[in-house]
């Protein structure tokens, strides 16, 4: 039976069951806003039956399995006032229950211990962390900026390379193995300030889920994780907005209903580092040496939702993120041997140096959503554009020197330009059939058209004048091109990525099964993969759950960089005939225990293998740096290898009470093997940090005051380094080489930096008034005890032979530190009439 037939049969089966399921009406849980926004995850608990149900993504709870009768029901949802009322079953029609947000602060919400929690746990997957439920705002903020990715980096199983590196590394995977979706649209390089912050405006985010383990078959094209970010809808704001001011940027977000059917959310953020350059440029500049430098980042979100009917809506969204660094130096030397005074009349000497680093993300999407008790249909059209444009350019104008033959070189030009530009056009159809309390089936298909252009140009040109000096004095010389070195390459990839999937959620008593199958086809190289996924949860008791999962994954796009540095010049590679895709297999097993009055404690182990991982060889990395310009010149030559990672994660997530937070510990291993590196032997990857402890505590210690503390401990990062030295013969061939080095490094990433630990604090004073607006003042202290965490080593050991036959050695290895102590104050100001805080 081929895949097509199988899918057809399953779909037919689903629809048959669907028809049967239509006989019963459902309870529909909505918020009391103007649009009756469905509440996903609300629980309905029937006291007499001691059982209940959880609302699906469209807010419906099926009543098919509830025996006829009248029951005392309690409907609850975190952050909303609990409803209690008698309900008679069967329902004559759909029953809509409207929940009101709890106006009290989070610490005042009373959460009961009951079977409700166990119902919620049934749907929880241990590998999935609902980040939006966590206290994102009170996590200490680097430079005062609340940042989603910085917070994710502090979760168990997630690692980062350094304080300055963007991105995150999940369970031994790489940075590029995370599928980052913004309202369902893939975003490729969403970082600001060279990776210090993510490009997502935290204030505009509604829901964030990070799936570290076996992510559902609905998702593909990445090996390690899915970060699913959903922006807020304007109707949840009711005219509320926030203005956040930190030392480096300001952001705002504002949302409101336009009318009964349409709502809008708009948010933006821009840095204001400009004054730094207004001050520094004049200080650095001299009459002959002018500096003009600029750096800024900017991001913008717009989301418009229009409801045609309570069940049908259209969502459109635009995201724009831009970083631009420009450094310009205009130089007119006056102490040069061939200075102005020595030049012929009319000739000038100057040089112009320019550096540009810029990268930009733009996404746009239109999503048509139709949902009711029985089915949810999402039709999605989107585009995602990423551009990295890096240029180093200098132009020495009329830099004249004279030769014996009166040749005058009048202009030297060096231009190093590296751009990557890729655009995705995609369409996707997802269908979920809520067949019963026990069974729902999802299916869908996606078509992605990738258009990727990369160009690298190195231009070195000299324009000169060949003739007598007198000719030049008498008039304009004829400029001739006397040196013209132009090299570079351009790669154009246009490919189709087509996928389809089928997955289900099925509960049999205490057992919940989430099987899935994804078929993926990539046109460049004609790769096709059938990727099974399976998650199983077993609810042993109301509080204790076991979980296991297994899945196959594929990835057709990888980004490569220097092993020790991530910059926007990272080079992206698509799979093709000569470059097979990366494939991964992951196995997880875990146990979760709901600790009364505390929260969920989970232990999860994982084992994953990966093949087809791309890398640059050491030689290629070395050559990339050996360039005349400032931009590393990566080749298109890649090597391919494998990865292996395993570990166990412990996490206690306390979401209730005055003290909330989480405590995580990860014991993990991560290795890579490349035939061309480390003699083909496995070596620890950069994120192989054996022990990793993260703890975040938020304590609402007084009315309007809260204290957040975030502590991290990590085993030192692997590094290639040695203090073993030998008397290297730098010129074995006797030809004047000064090659080689005296350090003995016989294996890759052989050395570990000292352990990393850091405490960040956040003190928040809420409910202040600032120009009649509700204001929150935060003092953030990053690295509170100023720990010297090592970023890297600058190796510098010299050996000098003395005349008496002895040797003088100068080991001058230096540690370069990461972030020192940094206190920063930031403001968060409520705007609009309804200043409902999203804490």
């Amino acid at each position, binding site marked *: 039976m081929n895949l097509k037939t199988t899918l057809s049969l399953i779909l037919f089966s689903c629809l048959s069951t669907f028809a049967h399921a239509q006989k019963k009406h459902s309870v529909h849980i909505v918020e009391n806003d103007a649009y009756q926004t469905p509440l996903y995850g609300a629980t309905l608990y029937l006291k007499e039956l001691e059982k209940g149900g959880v609302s699906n993504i469209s807010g419906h709870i099926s009543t098919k399995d509830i025996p006829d009768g009248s029951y005392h029901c309690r409907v609850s949802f975190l952050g909303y006032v609990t409803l209690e009322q008698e309900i008679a079953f069967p329902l004559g029609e759909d029953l809509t229950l409207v929940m009101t947000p709890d106006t009290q602060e989070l610490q005042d919400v009373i959460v009961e211990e009951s079977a409700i929690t166990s119902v919620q746990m049934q749907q929880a997957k241990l590998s999935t962390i609902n980040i939006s439920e966590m206290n994102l705002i009170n996590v200490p903020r680097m430079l005062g900026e609340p940042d989603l990715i910085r917070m994710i980096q502090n979760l168990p199983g997630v690692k980062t390379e350094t304080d300055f590196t963007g991105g995150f590394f999940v369970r031994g995977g790489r940075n590029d193995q995370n599928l980052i979706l913004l309202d369902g649209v893939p975003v490729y390089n969403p970082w600001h300030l060279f990776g210090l912050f993510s490009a997502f405006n935290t204030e505009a985010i509604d829901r964030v889920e990070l799936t570290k383990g076996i992510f559902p078959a609905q998702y593909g094209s990445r090996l390690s994780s899915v970060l699913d970010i959903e922006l807020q809808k304007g109707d949840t704001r009711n005219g509320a907005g926030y203005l956040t001011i930190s030392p480096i940027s300001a952001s705002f977000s504002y949302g409101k209903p336009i009318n009964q059917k349409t709502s809008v959310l708009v948010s933006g953020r821009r840095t204001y580092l400009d004054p730094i350059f207004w001050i520094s440029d004049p200080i650095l500049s001299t009459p002959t040496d002018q500096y003009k430098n600029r750096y800024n980042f900017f991001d913008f979100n717009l989301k418009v939702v229009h409801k045609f009917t309570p069940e049908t809506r259209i969502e459109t969204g635009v995201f724009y993120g831009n970083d631009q660094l420009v450094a310009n130096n205009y130089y007119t030397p006056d102490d040069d041997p061939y200075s102005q005074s020595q030049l012929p009349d009319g000739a000038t000497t100057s040089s112009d140096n320019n550096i540009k680093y810029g990268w930009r993300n733009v996404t746009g999407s239109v999503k048509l959503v139709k949902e009711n008790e029985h089915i949810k249909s999402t039709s999605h059209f989107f585009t995602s554009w990423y551009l990295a444009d890096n240029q180093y350019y200098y132009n020495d104008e009329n830099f004249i020197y004279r030769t014996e033959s009166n040749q005058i070189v009048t202009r030297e030009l060096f231009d190093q330009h590296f751009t990557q530009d890729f655009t995705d056009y995609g369409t996707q159809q997802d269908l979920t059939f809520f067949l019963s309390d026990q069974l729902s089936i999802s299916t869908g298909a996606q078509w992605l058209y990738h258009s990727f252009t990369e160009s690298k140009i190195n231009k070195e040109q000299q324009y000169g004048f060949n003739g007598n000096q007198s000719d030049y004095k008498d008039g304009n010389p004829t400029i001739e091109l006397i040196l013209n070195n132009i090299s570079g390459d351009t790669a154009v990839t246009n490919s189709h990525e087509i996928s389809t999937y089928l997955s289900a959620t099925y509960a049999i008593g205490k057992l919940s099964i989430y099987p899935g199958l994804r078929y993926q086809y990539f046109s460049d190289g004609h790769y096709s993969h059938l990727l099974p996924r399976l998650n199983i949860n077993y609810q042993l008791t109301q509080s204790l759950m076991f979980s296991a999962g297994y899945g196959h994954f594929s990835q057709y796009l990888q980004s490569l960089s220097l092993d020790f540095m991530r910059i926007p010049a990272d080079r992206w590679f698509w799979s093709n005939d000569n470059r097979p895709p990366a494939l991964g297999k992951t196995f997880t097993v875990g146990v979760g225990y709901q600790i009364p009055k505390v929260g969920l404690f989970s232990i999860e182990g994982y084992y994953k293998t990966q093949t087809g991982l791309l890398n640059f060889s050491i030689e290629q990395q070395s050559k990339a740096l050996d360039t005349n310009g400032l931009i590393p010149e990566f080749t298109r030559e890649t090597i391919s290898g494998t990865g292996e990672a395993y570990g166990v994660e412990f996490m206690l997530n306390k979401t209730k009470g005055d003290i909330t937070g989480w405590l995580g510990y990860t014991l993990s291993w991560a290795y890579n093997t490349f035939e061309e590196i480390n003699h083909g032997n496995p070596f620890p990857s950069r994120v192989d940090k054996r022990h990793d402890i993260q703890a975040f505590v938020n304590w609402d210690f007084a009315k309007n005051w809260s204290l957040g503390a975030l502590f991290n401990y990590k085993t030192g990062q692997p590094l290639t380094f040695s203090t073993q030295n030998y008397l290297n013969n730098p010129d074995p061939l006797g030809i004047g080489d000064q090659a080689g080095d005296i350090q003995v490094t016989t294996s890759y990433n052989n050395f570990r930096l000292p352990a990393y630990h850091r405490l960040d604090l956040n003190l928040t004073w809420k409910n202040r008034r600032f120009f009649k607006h509700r204001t929150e003042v935060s003092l953030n202290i990053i690295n509170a005890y100023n720990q010297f965490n090592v970023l890297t080593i600058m190796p510098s050991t010299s050996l000098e032979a003395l005349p008496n036959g002895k040797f003088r050695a100068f080991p001058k290895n230096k*540690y*370069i530190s990461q972030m*020192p102590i940094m206190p920063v104050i930031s403001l968060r100001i409520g705007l609009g009439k309804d200043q409902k805080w999203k804490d």
Partner: protein
Amino acid sequence: MERLRKTIAPLFILAGTIWSCQSEAIIDSKQPSVLHIEAVFFASESLPTITVGQSVNLPGQDMILLDSSDFMLDNAEVRLTWNGKPIPTRQIGQGLYQGVSEAIVSQGDVFNIIVTHDNRTAQATAIVPTIDEKNITSSITDTVTLDESRLTKTIPSDTASDGYTHIDSTIWAGSARVQSTLPQVPDFTYAASYSTRELTLFDSDWNVHIPSWFQSDLFTYNNYDKYYLGENYYGFDQLVINNTNFVIAQSEEDFENGHMSVEINYEIIIPEPIYADYYQLYSTEILPITVTNVENGVGLFIGAVKITQSKNQEINILRGKEYDPEDENHYY
């Protein structure tokens, strides 16, 4: 490059405040010492001296004084074979060992060495490459214009007021382009050419005030080249190298004849491919894995082919411009 750094420096003021901390530290990688073996077997030459040593741990941040015996090993057990046949070795100096044989190394020879010292053993194999010398050809520019250039010499003197005697002279010099063609080899090639006419200049104490591009050729040693071929030259079966050779007229007789005989010398060295990695991987930016072909140790134990050829060629010479000290624009 310094100015460039200054250009971008303010852009990282913010980052600088958070990144500026660095500290010299006592860092110890705690690796064991390894044996060090070094030798290059050139074809057509006798056996080279083999260096046997060890690595030394240098942690800390203070100056350390070491004895050569810390690096160079005496009384090591050295077992050398040449095409499978054992060759006796004797120690000729601290850490220096010599294979005892009168034979000359040939292309294609294989050497194997096993060194044991203090319960440590390292071994390596060297293979002398095979190159067809017949395919190496060269040609030289047939006509060269010689311009008069200024020479100066400064000699310490007790009588001169500033303690030096300055002597001026001139020289007639020009450039001759030499083109060499050699068979393609997959990795590293060193190729040099020079004329006997320029050697005399190198040997003198004269400061040569010659055109800047000449100076560049002469004193930055651009008249030899190192080629890492690899992927850059993939698909070619031969390599064409252009060198500039400095040609000087040593007497008026040369001009009277209108031609002169120039001896052009070529030196080409083609080592084992691992040398390409060794040469390429040198970088102050990153610390790569030490390039070695010594198992359980470090060092290069390799073979190489060195080809030297001399060719006498007749070239036509033309008298160019005379040196004019009054010419302000005549910068040298």
